[in-house]
Each structure stands twice: as C-alpha cells, then as structure tokens.
C-alpha cells in the first residue's frame, strides 16, 4: 500500500523534483565522464606518460561526492518542507514516522533510478567532449566512439550510492524526530526563521571602498611589479566587495522606489518590491552564490588559459623540427636522409647563430613582464646574431613576407611581448657597434621564430646584421630548421634523438606532448570543479527562489483580480526571476574581467608605464568563451526554475 502511495506521489510531485533531477543528472554525468577518463584506453594512448591525472580526478571526485551529498540533502529538505503538511496528515492518520520516512526515501529512490539512466547516458556523451579537449591539446584527430567503461560505471554507481545512502540516513533521522505539529507547520517555520537583513549605509559603503581599493591595487600592479601577497590581498578585497555590491544594489533599488515617478511607471513597483524583499532575505546567500560563481569563472578561465597555452607554445616553435649542435661543422645529413626515406621532408635550411658576448638587447627583454606562465627558459643569456642572408632564407622557408634591408643597418626579430621595450631601447640607442662599424636600426619584426625554448634563435630577441658583419662575431651554435609534410610521431622523434647525443632536438610534436601533459593535469580538474561549483550555485539559487513561490501565488492572484493580463503577469515573473538569478553573476564576471589578467600576469607594461593589456584582444575572446560556457549552464537552471515557478503561480 505504502509503496503504491509513494510511487503515485513521486509522479504527482515531479514538479517539485525538477531542480533535484537537474542537479543529480549533472552530478552523475560529471562523475561518470571524468571516471571514464581514468579508465579510458583511448586517453591512455594519447597521454602516454604515467600521469597523476587519475589521482587528481579521484581526489576531485571524492570532493564532488562530499559537496553533492550536502547539496542533495539541502534539496531533499526543501522538498520535505514543501510537502510537510501532507506528511503531517499521514501522521495524523496514524502512519508511523518510520513508515513516512521510508515512503519519502522510496520516492527519492525511484526518482534516483531515472536520474541515473539519463545521467549515465549524458556522462557517456560528456566524456566525448572531454576526449575532444584532450585530443585538441595533443593535436590528435578526434573520433567519436560510443565507449563505455564498466569500471567507470561501477565507480560512478558507488559514488552515487554513497550520496544516496548518506542523504537517506540524514532524511530518516530528521523525519524520525518530527512530530505532527512540526510537520504541519514546517513550511511556515521556514519563513519565520528567515531573518531579514537590514543593510545600512556603513555596511554598503565600507565594502564598496574595499572594492575600489582592490581595483586600484590591480591597476597599480600593472605599472609596478607588486608582490604576490599584495595582489592576493586585492583579490580578497574584491571578493569582500561582493557584499558591498548587493548591499549597494539593494540601497539603490530602495532609493529608486522612493521616486514616485520611477516606481509607478512600467509596473516597476511590483517587480522591484518583490526583488528588494528577496534581496533583504537572501543578501548573504547571494554573496555566497556570487563567490561560488567567481571561483567557477576563475577555474573555467584558468582551464581555457592553460589549454590555449599549449597551442601558443607550439606555434612559437615555428619549425616542425629544429636541430642544434655546438660544433660549427656539424653534419645533419643522416637526419635529412632519415626523413627523406620516410617521405616526411618538406624543406630544410641550415644556418649558424653568433654572439658578441654582450647582452644589451637581452637585458631589455627581461624588463618586460612576460607573464607568470610565459616560457622564458633558455640556455643563453647573451645577444644572439644571424646573418641577413640566413634570415631572408628562413623567412622564405617559413612563408613569412619578404622584407627590405639596407646596408649598414641591423634589424631585430623578437617575441611579441618584447616589441615595446626593445623599440623604446633602440629609440635611445639606435646605433650598434660591431668591430669598427656602426649600424643603424632598420626595423623590428615579431613573427614566431623559435625564440622561447631552451634552444632557439636567441632568447626572446635575435639581432640580424649584414653578412659581412658576421666576421666580427663569435660562433654560437649550428642549426638545421626542418619543415615536414606531415607531423612526426613521438617515436620518430626519438629515432632522430638516437642518432647523435650531442644534437639537441626541438620539435612541435615534442613540445606539444610536453606542454599538453602539463596542461591536461590542470585543465581537466579545473573544468570538473568549475562545473560542480556552477551546479551548486544554480541549485542554491533555484531552491531559494522557489521556496517563496507558494506565497507569491496569492500575490499573483491579487494581480489577476486587479486586472493585470496573464501575459503581463508572466512578463513580470520572468523579469523578477531574471533579476534574482543573474544579479549574483554580475560581480563575479566583473571580478574575473579585472582580476584574471592580474593573476596570469599577462598584463605587460612598457618603459613609459603605459598599460598594454593582453586582455584587450585575446582576453576578451577568452572571457566571452568563459562567460558563454557558464551562461549555458546557468540558463538550463534558470529555465527549469522559471518553468516550475510558472506552474506554481499560474496553476488553474
């Protein structure tokens, strides 16, 4: 009898369970997809080295199970409150607490079953997205395959059972302790307990001042290389200022509501009174949600940043393979013949690099902030020179546009970050003295030319001089730059390495593999945590917003009597939920836009102190991707919440 009753109830109460269902489906999908990364043979083939990735994913999964257990309990308690009168009635009719608890838990379990099926299916699909991210980082072609790992499946089910077991145990304990009176009035006690926060001017202005100080520090940090502790302090100030934002918005809306003209126009009075009332009750909760979104956005940003770094570093290598040997008379013929035999050789060019043992240009590059994750490793710290003939041939080989070069001039080729400091340097010191000849500055170029790795064409800067000037310089290293017609595998690179231990090899394949291995350990856990934080933020918001829906049902009925059309009522409701839902995202997005460039150190400044934020072009692109990813997640919950709210408010 009770089993039938609970099944019928579960069906009837489906509406109450929508947020619970969405959250659980996302949890299952995330857990399974990341578990599949651990056990996937496809991923093991791509990420060849023994990695700490499985360990990291396991750790994050345990964290997810812990967080989700609390979150699920939070939603279950919300549903219990909504249905407390029904359970109270059962108790009045003589059903034991124990049986009511069983009924409620059984109901949850039957929903759990459906959730698992959908979540596991979505998890299998989501795994393909993760695989695509890994393939992209390793530049391996992605192939969709319907792969299911039994081990991952079992592990996910274990995780879900842990969540279900813990939540059921807690729920049972709560229901056991309730009496009829408590159950009958549980939904009322909720609103009575909820305290209203009265925000005052001090509590509004003080955090806002902290926010301004935080932003000021970040701007200052762009001019002066401030210590990390100061930057972290700025970030903390910004997060505290989140409270100020909500307190300020509340004060702002309340002050607008004093303006008769404003409040009595466009039906604002209803929407903004409802909004300010909710904000008063949910001020700290909104701050908490906003901080969660801030962290989620940071994690997504970091994930994309590290993922992009792989591509950027590989592109900067310029050649498919570059061979370096300290011997001026190095013989690279066996490498050429190996690649020819494999039909891989497209073209190659051999050249020498020189040095004058000075480091004037090199010193200038060190003044620029390359970014905390810029690759500035090099085995040399003196200026590197190349003849114009070799330079022209290399440009031709790499498909770069031809340039004009006048006698008695020198040109610089550097990484893009070094253009501004070097330009400023040559404005002050335009002449270059080599032997007895002075050379005029003839221009600066910054295309990718292998200048960021351990071996390369200078460390960040290369000086190109007329061929006859080379005689005054000392030999530094012999280089063979090779372009292949298809990318080489790691085993082919290792074949080449075996020819001569003295020859150092830098290849796009090697750099990608090395860089992707480093990135994948960080990118995947970051995305994992980001999605979990998004789910938590959305769930808390949805549950809180929905908790007052029943009360608002009466308000909308009154509006109906007063003659507001149903269409207009729906618009009012949409605006009200939209404001409540997206308000916490505003400070989070703002903090990310400001603080993220500072965190990555990707703000560069020139000698005149002018700001040159990388953020302006690539930063905006990345921020758009980050915000889109986050919003796509957020919109699912928003639509779900609005749907339930409408069903409650506009039920017949």
């Amino acid at each position, binding site marked *: 009898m009770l089993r039938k009753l609970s099944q019928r109830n579960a069906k009837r109460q489906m509406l109450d369970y929508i947020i619970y269902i969405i959250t659980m489906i996302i949890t299952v999908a995330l857990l399974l997809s990341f578990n599949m990364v651990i056990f996937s043979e496809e991923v093991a083939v791509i990420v060849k080295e023994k990695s700490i990735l499985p360990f990291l994913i396991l750790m994050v999964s345990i964290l997810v199970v812990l967080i989700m257990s609390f979150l699920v309990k939070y939603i279950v308690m919300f549903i219990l409150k909504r249905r407390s009168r029904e359970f109270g009635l059962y108790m009045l009719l003589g059903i034991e607490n124990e049986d009511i608890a069983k009924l409620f838990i059984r109901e949850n379990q039957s929903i759990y079953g459906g959730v698992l099926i959908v979540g596991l299916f979505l998890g299998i699909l989501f795994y393909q997205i993760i695989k695509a991210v890994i393939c992209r980082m390793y530049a391996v072609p992605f192939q969709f395959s319907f792969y299911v790992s039994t081990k991952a499946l079992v592990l996910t089910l274990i995780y879900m059972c842990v969540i279900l077991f813990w939540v059921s145990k807690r729920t049972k304990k709560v229901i056991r302790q309730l009496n009829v009176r408590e159950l009958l009035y549980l939904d009322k006690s909720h609103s009575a307990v909820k305290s209203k926060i009265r925000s005052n001017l001090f509590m509004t202005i003080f955090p806002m001042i902290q926010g301004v100080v935080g932003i000021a520090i970040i701007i200052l940090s762009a001019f002066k290389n401030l210590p990390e502790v100061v930057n972290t302090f700025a970030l903390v100030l910004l997060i505290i200022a989140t409270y100020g934002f909500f307190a300020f918005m509340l004060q702002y809306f309340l002050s607008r509501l004093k303006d*008769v*003209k*404003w*409040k*009595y*126009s466009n*039906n604002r*009075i*209803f929407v903004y*009174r*409802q909004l*300010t*009332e909710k904000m008063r009750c949910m001020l700290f909760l909104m701050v908490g949600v906003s901080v969660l979104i801030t962290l989620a956005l940071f994690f997504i940003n970091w994930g994309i940043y590290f993922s992009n770094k792989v591509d950027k570093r590989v592109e900067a290598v310029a050649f498919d393979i570059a061979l370096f040997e300290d011997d001026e008379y190095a013989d690279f013929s066996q490498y050429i013949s190996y690649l020819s035999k494999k039909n891989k050789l497209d073209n190659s060019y051999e050249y020498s690099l020189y040095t004058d043992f000075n480091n004037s240009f090199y010193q200038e590059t060190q003044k620029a902030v390359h970014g905390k994750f810029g690759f500035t490793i090099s085995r040399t710290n003196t200026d590197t020179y190349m003849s114009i003939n070799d330079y022209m041939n290399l440009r031709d080989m790499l498909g770069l546009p031809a340039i004009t070069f006048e006698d008695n001039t020198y040109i610089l080729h550097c990484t893009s970050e070094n253009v501004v400091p070097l330009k400023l340097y040559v404005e002050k010191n335009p002449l270059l003295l080599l032997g007895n000849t002075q050379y005029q500055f003839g221009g600066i170029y910054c295309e990718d030319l292998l200048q960021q790795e351990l071996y390369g064409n200078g460390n960040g800067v290369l000086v190109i001089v007329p061929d006859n000037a080379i005689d005054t310089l000392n030999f530094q290293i012999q280089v063979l730059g090779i372009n292949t017609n298809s990318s080489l595998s790691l085993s082919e690179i290792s074949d080449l390495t075996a020819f001569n231990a003295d020859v150092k090899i830098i290849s796009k394949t090697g750099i990608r593999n090395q860089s992707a291995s480093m990135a994948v350990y960080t990118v995947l856990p970051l995305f994992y945590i980001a999605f979990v934080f998004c789910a938590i933020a959305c769930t808390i918001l949805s549950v809180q917003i929905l908790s007052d829906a029943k009360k608002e049902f*009466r*308000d909308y*009925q*009154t*509006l*109906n*009597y*007063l*003659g*507001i*059309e*149903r269409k207009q009522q729906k618009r009012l409701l949409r605006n009200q939920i939209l404001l409540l839902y997206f308000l916490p995202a505003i400070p989070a997005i703002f903090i990310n836009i400001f603080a993220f460039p500072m965190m990555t150190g990707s703000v560069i400044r020139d000698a005149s102190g002018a700001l040159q934020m990388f953020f302006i072009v690539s930063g905006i692109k990345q921020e758009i991707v980050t915000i889109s990813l986050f919003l796509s997640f957020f919109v699912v919950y928003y639509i779900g919440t609005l749907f339930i709210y409408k069903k409650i408010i506009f039920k017949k």
Partner: protein
Amino acid sequence: MNTILKVVDVEKYYGTKSNLKKALDHIQFNVDAGEFVSIMGPSGSGKTTLLNCISTIDMVSDGHIYLNERDLATLLPKEMASFRRKNLGFIFQDFNLLDTLSIEENIALPLAIKNTPAKETHRIVTSLMQRLGIDDIATKFPSQVSGGQKQRCACARAFVNRPKLILADEPTGALDSVSAKQLLELLTELNAQEKATILMVTHDPFSASYGNRVLFLKDGHFNKELQKKQMSRNEFYHSILLEVSTFGGEEPC
C-alpha cells in the same frame, strides 16, 4: 435610476453529468448606480459563486450578467483582465494586500497598472488616504498595521480607480467588532458621499444591515428581498434577524 448590474436568470452547475451540483438556480436581480446591496446567505448557499461570476473569474452555465450594459458572456478571455481593471473593485475577507508593497503602494497599484501618470497617482492616493484616515501609515507595510487598517487600505485600493462596481466578499470576516463597524461605516460613507456602487456578500446580519437592500440567498436561489427604505439601521438589522430566523440559515446572535 441607471442600472449598473443586471443578473438575468443565471444558473451555475458544478461537477459531471452523473454528479451535477446546482450552485446558482435562476438568479435574477439588478443593482442600480449608487446602491449598496448586501447578499446574505449561509455557507454553501452560492454567495461566492455568484460573486465570482459577476467578477468574471467564473463563467455562468446559463443566463446572462450585464455589467454596465455589457454581457459578460460575450467577453473574450483576453478582454477580461482589462474589463476588471476598468469596471470592478474588490475587497476580500483576508485583505489580499501585497506584503512587499507599502500601504500607499498597495492603494496606488490599480492606477499604476492603468498607466496613470505618476504625479496624478500620487495625488489621488494621498488625498484618498487622508479621506480614509490612513495617511499616517502610508509608508508602513501590511505586516506592520492592524487588520482594520489593512481592510481600510483594501477599501481604498478597491475605490481608487472609481470602478463602476465594488464587490466585497465577507469584508468584515477577519476583523474584530470595532474594526468591522468602522469598516462598514466607511463603506456606507463611500456609498453615500462618493456614490460608490457596492455589492457585498456576507453571512453576518449586522454587516448586511449597512446596505440599502438585502437579498437572501439559500441553496442557490433568492428566497427573499428586504428594502431598508425609511428604516433606521437598527430597525433594518432587526428585520434582517427576523427574516433569518423565519427562513432558517444563520441563527440570530
């Protein structure tokens, strides 16, 4: 006299064919402009059903209701809200004030919905609040005022639009006797001085005695009609009590 409300042979059924319940049975009556009519009847007599039909919240099964010469049956669903907005004012037993709005804003709401200019809204609401003696609680919220004050606010909200007809559903049901008396006097005042047309549904003979005319509803049809005419309110009250005891229903207190 100009007839505002004309109810012609109205029937209302609930339920299925096999289990049909007749809530209103051939109801017929008129309300003239400036009248204060009470409809009395015990619980389940069909008072609220009748009120819902007049207020366009519910549809009649048969018959016609004309409000200001417009047959409500001909109203399209999308016209109903606007019709209510322009022609009707409501006073409910449990006030139905919006808790998030101040007293002043609750009263202003019907005008704001009609897009009345803000300054005009403010002026009308302020003068009405002064008239009803609730201007001192203008900035307070419903949770901060007494039941009597809440119902005064509800009265002001119903009247602020100058509707053709004010429908009051047991307006004194949630009030103590002093507040109830004050509210009924206020309704009488609005009726006498502002020519507000009021149709009040109640089960309380004392409240009904404030009307000019009382219609007795029992089991879905009118049993009797009493006119106040030259009677004092007290005399009218006693004649209502007598009628109630004769026809059954609510026992006199």
